[in-house]
């Protein structure tokens, strides 16, 4: 689909080579493609429009650099602007202030799970958290949070027969004080942002507990509505930040940009799984790559680092950077990846992979690609340029596939390599930064 943004831009600029200026008309053409890309990633259409306007101003009149293609130059401008908008190049630094944390959001977005994850992080950072069950509507909401509390050994305050959340809130605060719990996380029921009665319930709870942090929890797959949701909750409560959940899926996450743009509030945490360890700092740069469909090279390299030994990871990183990644590496990597469990998660992080239908499918299809590569000689894998027609025919036969499939696979591989190079610089920059906020672990 839209991993081809970089291809599309290349075709927009096919006649433009170094030492020109980016002109109004080619910038406009390019940005039209970018706009479609943003919309496909679920960025709100108004937010996308504003974004394009601003980016246009930045792009106009820039010298076309001889060393990069104009399409890539535009991508860089767009990418940087996205990063800027979502909070800059550093991972959003999170603090863990003592006091009260209020978790709010729509139904099923992940509030209760995120509350549990957060309590765990708080404890790790030297706080003494208390979880408070303020969802008085959903069946078994209290059981759910009590189960989570047990799993992380954090106490949970609940009043099973009380339907008034302010009463629960008041008693919870007293309980926290008596028990010496210094940081209190209030899990609340899911509600529609337009449900005035239920929103007022939150307002009353907020006024009572005067939270340090009010976090809007939102599903990363949210569509165009993200803007309305964020606006409503922010207006009613004055949120202090956003938790973006279910980022372990393949949602492009345009909602992140939309919500940030309309509220100006930072995305503070990223939910990346159902387990209670799966809460991370938010990296605007990764999100920008994701929204643009360029994949998450940084994340990939970090994952690789965990799985391979450090030396191997370094080698991989260098190879990505100087574009000498070959099929041999690819095959080795595929075999390593298999050890890491669910392949899909990892493959989604590879630029260009989103476009590889053969890889996004079943294990069986995965095996075909592996078979293709295994039918090559080592030499061929090292130097894919050797693969002429007759070699390709041989490989197709040997792997029980067709020449078209072999061609496809090679084409995708080359595309991936190219994009990886684009990302190389960014990734080096990231590598220099390193330091994570205390208690945050590297993604896995």
């Amino acid at each position: 689909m839209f991993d081809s943004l970089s291809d599309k831009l290349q075709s927009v600029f096919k006649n433009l080579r170094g030492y020109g200026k980016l002109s109004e008309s080619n910038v406009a053409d390019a940005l039209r493609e970018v706009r479609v890309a943003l919309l496909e990633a679920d960025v709100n259409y108004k937010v996308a429009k504003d974004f394009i306007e601003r980016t246009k101003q930045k792009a106009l009149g820039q010298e076309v650099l001889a060393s990069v293609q104009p399409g890539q130059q535009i991508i860089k401008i767009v990418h940087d602007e996205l990063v800027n908008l979502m909070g800059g190049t550093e991972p959003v630094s999170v603090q863990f202030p003592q006091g009260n944390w209020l978790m709010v959001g729509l139904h099923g977005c992940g509030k209760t799970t995120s509350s549990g994850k957060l309590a765990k992080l708080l404890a790790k950072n030297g706080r003494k958290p208390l979880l408070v069950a303020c969802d008085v509507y959903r069946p078994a909401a209290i059981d759910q949070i009590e189960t989570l509390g047990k799993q992380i050994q954090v106490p949970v305050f609940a009043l099973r027969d009380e339907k008034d959340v302010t009463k629960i809130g008041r008693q919870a605060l007293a309980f926290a004080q008596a028990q010496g719990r210094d940081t209190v996380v209030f899990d609340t029921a899911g509600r529609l942002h337009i449900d005035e009665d239920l929103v007022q319930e939150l307002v009353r709870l907020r006024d009572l507990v005067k939270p340090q942090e009010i976090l809007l929890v939102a599903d990363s797959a949210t569509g165009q509505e993200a803007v309305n949701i964020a606006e409503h909750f922010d207006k009613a409560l004055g949120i202090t930040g956003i938790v973006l959940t279910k980022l372990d899926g393949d949602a492009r996450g345009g909602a992140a940009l939309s919500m940030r743009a309309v509220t100006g509030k930072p995305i503070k945490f990223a939910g990346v799984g159902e387990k209670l360890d799966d809460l991370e700092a938010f990296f605007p740069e990764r999100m920008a790559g994701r929204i643009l469909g360029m994949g998450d090279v940084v994340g990939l390299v970090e994952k690789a680092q965990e799985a391979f030994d450090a030396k191997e990871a370094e080698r991989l990183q260098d190879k990505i950077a100087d574009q000498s990644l070959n099929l041999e590496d690819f095959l080795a990597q595929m075999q390593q990846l298999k050890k890491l469990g669910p392949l899909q998660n990892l493959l989604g992080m590879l630029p260009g992979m989103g476009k590889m239908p053969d890889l996004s499918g079943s294990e069986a299809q995965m095996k075909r690609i592996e078979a293709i590569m295994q039918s090559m000689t080592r030499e061929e894998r090292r130097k894919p340029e050797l693969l002429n027609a007759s070699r390709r025919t041989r490989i197709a036969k040997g792997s029980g596939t067709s020449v078209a499939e072999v061609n496809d696979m090679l084409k995708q591989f080359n595309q991936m390599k190219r994009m990886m190079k684009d990302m190389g610089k960014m990734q080096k920059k990231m590598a220099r930064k390193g330091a994570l906020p205390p208690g945050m672990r590297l993604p896995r």
Partner: protein
Amino acid sequence: MSLFQKFRAGLKKTSTKLAGEIKRIVTRAPRLDADALDELEAALIATDIGIGTTGAIIDQTKAAAKKTGQVDVFAIARAEIARELGVATHHLNKAPQAPTVVLLAGVNGAGKTTTTAKLAHLLKGQGNSVLLAACDTFRAAAIEQLKIWGGRVGCEVIAGEYGSDSAALAFDALGAALARKSDYLLVDTAGRLHTKQNLMEEMKKMHRVLQKRLPGTPHETLLVLDATTGSNALNQAREFHQLLGVTGLVVTKLDGTAKGGIVVAIARELKLPVKFIGLGEQLDDLQPFDPQQFAAALFSEPVA
């Protein structure tokens, strides 16, 4: 408020906003120049109906503008959407012989468990005996949640231990449904992202095991989608459909402002019918889906 009113009311808030937007574009540039078409495109995209359907509407609009100089964007959009959504099929497949087995699948938090309860309530109301299977053995308190619903509806719930094999449980539950001669067995499953190979395989296993226990089951595999979801719902539908052969969609949370337009993109590509829509958290907040009504609610002209 009746369910119908609720549905209209929910959609109306956004549809009037959108309709106003479209009206504004068309009034300002009746001949629909390139800029106006761009804006129109963006306004259409704001319904989450997807790039494909948006493109089709834009193309037809352009063609109409060329031919007659006069276009009714609303009529074009309504017709296109109703056409893509196909005819209403808002009934559950029924097995020639009881039990009819319904499997509910979907990503995390979409509304599977609540929909299971609502469906049970609906079917009971029609005089059927219904058995529920709590095959989410993973998420905290998932079993308690379904048991509470079962209690409210007045249905027995077959449940196992947390961490136990969901396929084995589905197998047992089907056995129980056969033994009790239940009319329906509704199988609630754990939320899973369509990108997670191992969890998807688990789902497939459940499917397979049901088939093994009683060929032809499940008679209905419903994919539950959250109306607030954007383009990712299409990926969800693709993956679940490829894996299980989905027979119908349930779109939840349409009582909010989200339009659930993504079902149009799904219908367009996968030809999957929407069978029910969810309009709230209560047992009777489930309604059959009507494509015409949906299209009309999405694109009704603003009353000046």
